[in-house]
């Protein structure tokens, strides 16, 4: 198999692009996709600081690597979920990356903020662990950005993540969730920072290949709580569809973004207010994070 750009021996085949690349040309292809995402959705400028949410996995560290090399002013944010060895190892990967690239890294512990680590939150809420975890992460990312006076949070969500989320929303016709699914969500309130996903054009396999080629030491092991998660089941279904028809995930997601998403946007915007307890943005009197935190504190005080 030959590289589409230089004709040398290819290292990676990209069936959905009907192409293969050598390592050097693949890295350039990857960076071009990120540049295009940032440009098309005006995600951020070189004059703005960017808070990069990092987990120690391939996607977020690949994203951070590209943004640093593209000359953006970045700060990493690692949220320690307290998930046993998984968190210990993923935190170490983030700290090592930040030290190697000489970039600042903020670390926040979920247990300090919510009152307990994710394994306890899982027991207390009796909801899927990814639910309380995701809620806490979104809240803490936004709050950390406000505290640091950083206008935008970038996450490592890739094409597969976005396609799987869309698939889940469509399967249940969660029409409230559909307009919120976007590579870039603008700030709609002074206390809500912009949220962007610069890797949304790149597949999971492409980010893994990029991280490998760039010799980024990332955590390969799965989060122990992700085993059996619905999103994983959806990804597996989409993988089968992609195998049968390369480009299926891309067409599903990009078709939605270009053709269907506008139809789900509400005529009237949701009214946002500040949480009576913590002051962060919510649609109700007390925000979901404060309610979760109360629930955890009540349960652990017993």
């Amino acid at each position: 198999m030959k590289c589409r750009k230089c004709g040398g021996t290819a290292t990676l085949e990209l069936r959905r692009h009907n192409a293969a690349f050598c390592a050097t040309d693949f890295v350039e292809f990857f960076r071009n996709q990120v540049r295009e995402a940032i440009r098309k959705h005006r995600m951020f400028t070189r004059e703005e600081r960017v808070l990069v949410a990092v987990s120690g996995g391939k996607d977020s560290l690949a994203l951070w690597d590209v943004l640093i090399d593209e000359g953006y002013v970045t700060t990493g944010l690692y949220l320690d979920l307290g998930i046993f060895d998984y968190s210990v190892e993923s935190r170490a990967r983030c700290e090592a990356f930040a030290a190697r690239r000489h970039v600042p890294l903020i670390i926040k512990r979920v247990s300090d903020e919510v009152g307990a680590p994710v394994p306890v939150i899982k027991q207390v809420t009796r909801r899927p662990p990814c639910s309380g975890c995701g809620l806490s992460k979104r809240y803490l990312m936004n709050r950390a950005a406000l505290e640091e006076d950083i206008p935008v949070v970038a996450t490592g969500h890739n094409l597969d993540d976005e396609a799987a989320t869309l698939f889940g929303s469509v399967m249940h016709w969660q029409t409230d969730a559909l307009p919120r699914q976007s590579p870039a969500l603008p700030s709609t309130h002074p206390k809500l920072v912009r949220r962007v996903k610069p890797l949304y054009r790149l597949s999971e396999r492409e980010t893994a290949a990029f991280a490998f080629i760039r010799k980024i030491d990332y955590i390969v092991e799965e989060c122990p709580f992700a085993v059996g998660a619905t999103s994983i089941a959806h990804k597996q279904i989409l993988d089968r569809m992609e195998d049968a028809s390369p480009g299926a995930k891309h067409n599903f997601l990009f078709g939605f973004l270009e053709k269907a998403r506008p139809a789900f946007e509400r005529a009237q915007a949701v009214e946002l207010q500040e949480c009576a307890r913590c002051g962060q943005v919510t649609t109700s009197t007390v925000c979901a994070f404060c309610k979760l935190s109360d629930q955890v504190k009540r349960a652990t005080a017993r």
Partner: protein
Amino acid sequence: MKVLLRNPRREVTVAGNRRVKDVLRELDILPETVLVIRGDDLVTPDQLVRDDDTIELRPVMSGGLS
């Protein structure tokens, strides 16, 4: 040849001297779900792997989304 698999980490032995895509098919692994690593390099599905090779099939899926 030796094949290193992850999640959980384990090692299996399969016949070599054939193409990567044939090895993946025998193990019932979709090519798009793994990186195929030999030494310090990624290898494409059309490449031959020898009987004395060791390859790693590294899953690319991450997740647990909310």
